[in-house]
């Protein structure tokens, strides 16, 4: 079991580092200079023009939402890091611990909130006008598998809760 745990830990680290490096590369490629343009616009903008309808404000919103997508991707990577905590508990022999139940719930939460938030942000991006948004196409996108995966983790947390109760009962049967 320890060997399997070690292999799984190594695989999780590889996935985590790959995801983190892809995210960092995407952030590096993202043009943050756009925010500087907004700063200069803020200095010279026509104060009579409505803020919400001005072109620069819309453009700035687009970049803020794009940056928001990075934050959510970081949050997803943080969610993946809980796998390491679960593997650590398993390595220590605490299969049905309270911590594992908590971690499974957290992973479920993060997966579901990531998918919902990315869907909302993509919808906002489309409404700003820089991309197209089709709800059913978005649902078909590969990242939405995280919703059933998140639900599966909730179910796992419930199973582990019951298993913990059964184990406790078994331990107290003399």
């Amino acid at each position, binding site marked *: 079991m320890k060997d399997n745990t070690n292999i799984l830990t190594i695989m999780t680290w590889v996935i985590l580092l790959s995801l983190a490096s892809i995210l960092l590369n995407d952030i590096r490629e993202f043009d943050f200079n756009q925010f500087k343009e907004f700063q200069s616009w803020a200095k010279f903008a026509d104060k009579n023009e409505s803020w919400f309808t001005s072109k620069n404000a819309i453009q700035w919103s687009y970049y803020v939402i794009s940056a928001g997508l990075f934050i959510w991707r970081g949050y997803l990577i943080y969610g993946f890091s809980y796998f390491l905590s679960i593997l650590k508990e398993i390595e220590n022999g605490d299969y049905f611990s309270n911590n594992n139940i908590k971690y499974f719930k957290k992973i479920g939460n993060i997966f579901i909130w990531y998918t919902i938030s990315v869907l909302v942000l993509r919808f906002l991006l489309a409404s700003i006008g820089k991309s197209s948004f089709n709800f059913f196409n978005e649902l078909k996108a590969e990242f939405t598998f995280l919703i059933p995966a998140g639900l599966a983790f909730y179910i796992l947390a419930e199973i582990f809760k019951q298993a913990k109760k059964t184990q406790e009962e078994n331990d*107290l049967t*003399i």
Partner: protein
Amino acid sequence: MPIIVNLDRILAERKMKSKELAEIIGITTANLSILKSGKAKAVRFSTLEAICKALDCQPADILEYVED
């Protein structure tokens, strides 16, 4: 719990130590302590049989029902 375990009394009557009983019936002293303190959730028939055999008593001598 309304089930009382009278092992301490029977042990005292038989002048037997907990450690000795644990060795005879083949359970750890920690588990015997759980049983004596009433923290146990269940008792296996095999354990009950071994206790009765070792202490020469009936299950009713060890277990008692007291209404809450």
